[in-house]
């Protein structure tokens, strides 16, 4: 996968029809710390793992409020994420000024995807190395989108990105059918459990994760640490009674972690989906 002769610039195709620079950008997303999102008919929850480099420094900010009805969680090059968040905030505020009405999240996501695509077709640019989980409200309800460095975007019921996100995805896959009708509190609980899956046995506390919610009648906001800790405590008590379930989860994590080391085996280029 590395040291190909066709990977020097983003405007060079490989003979197999792949753009390696774009794929490398998507690798950068996989190296970032995990971010997950899930939605019901009326609410969307974003959660991410926020580890500081060392005890002395502060955490990386990975969840940004874009407008009262839209928020975004990022994974990958956080600097690129910050720049894109600023762009999104700018688009939202310009729309609100001209039309006095919130920008529909579906349109924002398309504009973001078009912006990312430009960077895959200019020899003097590089793709943004950040994946964005965009959570927002529309006329048609609550939506969760994933924006890729390739310029693709997909709508999801629930999704996880970043390192060790496969564990969270497995958990979400088992439960996603119930999310549409979940209550807001159940959604938050599921989000925290999914985050815990990515930690591989490490203890989940509110100072290594961030949770944000947006919903009908509830503007986008990040939950404060105390609230999050209380929610964690509420379900950890239940979890302690089932240690065998946790161990089985850990074993599954290790298998999937090995699988993540060689993504080339996945076959088709990720952006071909």
């Amino acid at each position, binding site marked *: 996968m590395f040291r190909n002769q066709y990977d020097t610039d983003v405007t060079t195709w490989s003979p197999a029809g792949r753009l390696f620079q774009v794929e490398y950008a998507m690798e950068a997303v996989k190296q970032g710390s995990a971010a997950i999102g899930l939605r019901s008919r009326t609410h969307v929850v974003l959660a991410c793992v926020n580890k500081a480099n060392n005890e002395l420094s502060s955490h990386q900010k990975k969840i940004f409020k874009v407008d009262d009805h839209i928020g975004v969680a990022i994974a990958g090059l956080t600097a690129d994420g910050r720049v894109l968040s600023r762009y999104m905030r700018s688009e939202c505020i310009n729309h609100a000024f001209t039309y*006095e009405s919130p920008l529909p999240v579906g349109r924002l996501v398309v504009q973001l995807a078009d912006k990312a695509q430009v960077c895959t077709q200019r020899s003097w640019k590089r793709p943004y190395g950040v994946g964005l989980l965009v959570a927002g409200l529309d*006329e048609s309800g609550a939506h969760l989108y994933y924006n890729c460095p390739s310029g693709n975007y997909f709508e999801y019921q629930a999704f996880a990105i970043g390192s060790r996100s496969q564990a969270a995805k497995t958990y979400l896959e088992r439960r996603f059918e119930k999310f549409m009708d979940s209550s807001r509190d159940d959604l938050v609980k599921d989000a925290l459990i999914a985050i815990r899956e990515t930690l591989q046995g490490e203890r989940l506390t509110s100072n290594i994760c961030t949770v944000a919610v947006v919903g009908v009648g509830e503007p986008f906001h990040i939950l404060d640490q105390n609230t999050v800790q209380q929610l964690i405590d509420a379900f950890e008590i239940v979890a302690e009674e089932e240690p065998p379930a946790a161990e089985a989860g850990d074993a599954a994590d290790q298998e999937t972690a090995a699988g993540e080391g060689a993504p080339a085996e996945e076959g088709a280029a990720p952006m071909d989906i």
Partner: protein
Amino acid sequence: MSEAFSLVKKPLAGLSRGANSFLLFRQFAEPLPPPPSPSAAAAAVAADRSMSFSKMPLVEANQTPDASSLSLDSERTLYPYVTGTSVVAFKYRDGILMAADMGGSYGSTLRYKTVERIKPIGKHSLLGASGEISDFQEILRYLDELILYDNMWDDGNSLGPKEVHNYLTRVMYNRRNKFNPLWNSLVLGGVKNGQKYLGMVSMIGVNFEDNHVATGFGNHLARPILRDEWNEDLSFEDGVKLLEKCMRVLLYRDRSAVNKLQIAKITEEGATLFPPYSLKTFWGFEAYKNPTVGAEGSW
């Protein structure tokens, strides 16, 4: 003078000294009378041009354009030419009702009598305008483009009356700031997701929402009637009767009104523009018969 010197110096760099002085002499041999133009500014401009292009024949030098056509006054709206009179609109049970006559006045002449001053915009709104008709047509072009791009998203979202109203406010206000207004008073009404919306924008960008609005003379003659007789739950028939009452007063008292009006309604289902018709009027007052009875010799 010094200007002419500097212009002459560069091209003559390669020539011999003799030629230099000969050409210099030629430059100043021709007399330069000031061209007969009205403003001092024009004279200055003309003089400059003659100096720089002294090889030009004198006739051309006298025909330099004068300042007022050189200036930018012709590029902005100073006064309206073909105008429409009042628009009246209010909310009723199922949506919005709007009425306007079909007159386009050219000053005091009632020149055009089939001007449609109410148009549907997208799926959810109606726009009525008074003031300069050509500016109204320009606004319709802007909105056409806006709705087109909105439809091209093809994503289930659409611009409602509130969004269109705000867009128009921005357009009107920005034009006013450039001292080039769109000379209209606009009435924007619509229904979206069961919510009724009715607003107005003036030519200087003043905008507001209300349950009943009117432009021009309608503000003075129709709104008092509406203040007394409008209520939240008017049926369509009662609404039309109320509109006709307002339009009849305007027809009697507004000299730029014509007796051919168009009523439009917009509901959740969509917009309907009704065919134009005329109001019955009554002129048989005693005071109008034998008007000269009290004053011999008058007419």
